[in-house]
């Protein structure tokens, strides 16, 4: 696994191939031989230019007046040296709430949601019956394949305050999705329910690369199940955990749309409104394009910043990081 990871870090893995052996280099023979490769790349590159890089020119709008009738570079600059919309966003109570909610929900996801798949992977790893293990894995992957629309429609039935099955079974009437704090709990729980099994895949793969000799040695030393997990298994998957931690930290201000949007309801908007929903409501529904482009830019920049920071931090502690 170690050797494989090193070539992901360099952008183009170094491998020798047939072309190397040509003595001189001539564009003519080169193109004659490989022009078809460029042909294959034409549509993908066109895709990236049109749908990924052209939108970046609209980022300019974040510093311009709210006008989409003419191209963004022709629009007049916004007030406050172009920072009008950023200032406006931070004065907007709705945005502050959305920002807080995004960070809070993501932190909860990180703190509660991240250890779960690790524990589940350890559990599956200890499962002694191979066939049963396979079935368990298949079933645990199921929720990953459900959309948030489906999950929210099931949730609304199961967790309903008065006539939901859960409350009926418990003999209570807890408003699981009806008050902000409970809603947060339900949101986190559902996130874990959906992705926990799926996220074990990567840990289970890392676990298979731990040498069995280490377990043998530990057994000879008289280590029980828990001690083996603590001293062999966990250190064996440490670098995987750190890579995923970096990725998650990078997304601390990123926000999903489907999950909060479909689970939200009018009683809990103070908890459920995240930046993605704010952008949708103010931008697409409210046509405040400059303001919401500014918010999106802020979000993207912070994401990149966090990713770089956490990667640097991981490297400082002697880990490999993600590049």
């Amino acid at each position: 696994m170690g050797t494989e990871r090193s070539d992901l870090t360099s952008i183009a893995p170094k491998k020798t191939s047939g072309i190397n052996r040509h003595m001189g280099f001539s564009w003519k023979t080169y193109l004659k031989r490989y022009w078809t490769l460029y042909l294959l790349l034409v549509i993908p590159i066109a895709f990236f230019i049109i749908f990924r890089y052209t939108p970046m020119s609209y980022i300019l709008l974040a510093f311009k007046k709210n006008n989409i009738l003419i191209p963004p570079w022709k629009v007049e600059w916004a007030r406050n040296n172009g920072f009008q919309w950023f200032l406006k966003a931070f004065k907007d109570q709705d945005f502050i709430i959305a920002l807080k909610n995004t960070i809070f929900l993501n932190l909860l996801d990180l703190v509660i949601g991240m250890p779960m798949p690790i524990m589940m992977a350890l559990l599956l790893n200890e499962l002694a019956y191979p066939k049963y293990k396979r079935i368990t894995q298949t079933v645990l992957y199921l929720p990953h394949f459900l959309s948030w629309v489906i999950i929210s429609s099931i949730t609304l039935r199961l967790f309903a305050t008065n006539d939901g099955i859960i409350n009926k079974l418990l003999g209570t009437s807890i408003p699981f999705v009806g008050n902000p704090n409970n809603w947060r709990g339900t949101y986190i729980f559902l996130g874990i329910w959906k992705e926990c099994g799926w996220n074990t895949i990567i840990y289970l793969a890392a676990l298979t690369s731990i040498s069995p000799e280490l377990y043998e040695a530990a057994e000879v030393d008289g280590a029980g199940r828990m001690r083996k997990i603590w001293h062999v298994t966990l250190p064996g998957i440490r670098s995987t955990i750190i890579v995923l931690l970096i990725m998650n930290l990078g997304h601390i201000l990123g926000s999903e749309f489907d999950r909060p949007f479909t689970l939200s309801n009018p009683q809990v908007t103070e908890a459920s409104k995240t930046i993605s929903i704010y952008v949708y409501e103010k931008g697409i529904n409210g046509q405040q394009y400059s303001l919401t482009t500014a918010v999106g830019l802020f979000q993207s920049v912070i994401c990149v910043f966090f990713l770089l920071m956490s990667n640097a931090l991981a490297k400082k502690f002697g880990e490999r990081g993600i590049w």
Partner: protein
Amino acid sequence: MSIVNETNKLSSRKLRDGMIKSRKTRIGDLLIAFICLILMLLCLLPMLHVLASSLSSADALVKNEVFIWPKGWNIDAYQTVLTTEKYVRSLGWTAILTLICTLLSISLTVCAAYPLIYTNLKGGRFINFIMLFTMYFSAGTIPYYLLLSRLGMLNTPYALIFPNCISVFNVIIMRSFFFGVPDSLREAGEIDGASPIRILVQIYLPLSLPVIATLSLFYAVGRWNGFSDALMYLKKSESEKYWPIQLLLYNVIKNSTQTNEQAAQEGFFANGVSKTIQMATVMFATVPILLVYPWLQRYFVSGVTIGAVKG
């Protein structure tokens, strides 16, 4: 690497089976198996509940008598869904859309990934960079929306097909898989005078069926479950005919909860009927995927692993 892993796994299993287990270990094993059973139930019960609800009578549903076994067996809800034009059209359209998008996406992913394994390709590093860069920095929701509006794609089915037809993540998975194919095969082809395209079609693609299956599953699931792009890009009422099933379902459920109180006043029955229909629609929207993914499990597990390690 995978072969080494397999042997490791095998030897550790042999090791575990070969050793005489202490009583404590055996109790531990059973306990773990039991916890796994509970976790499985946790994943399955909600779906079973939906299935049972969709097969129950409206009356039983309103009285909340259904848990995981249908009460008052009937398939009226399914009949209603299958005879309501709105649902049938949306399901059919989503299926066609998913097929188109998956075919397009997988072809473009191969096109993007294959040239990159020629590491001496002039400009290959640059092309690689412009792809990877978009994974870390994206323009954001509104710029995408404005672009589609400028291209005249809003409220057309193109808005659901093109903007996300290549996922960089999947290109990386595909490329890593291609890298795993021994170079000697490609060199043998080159010596025989085969063009790069011919090498792709005759050597790489046949060897890559597992990863193609995996990525097709990812693309298909993404499109079938896709919701937010339809919500944002198909706003006008005349584009309602292009609504994928997820958006339709979302609106049906939202409207039914909004009119819940009203329905309650009009009598429970109407509300119950709509609930069974909703549950039948949920079944229609999930079953196609649930039927497919277990068969591809072996493949997607390795796909995810490559992706995560490379990502």
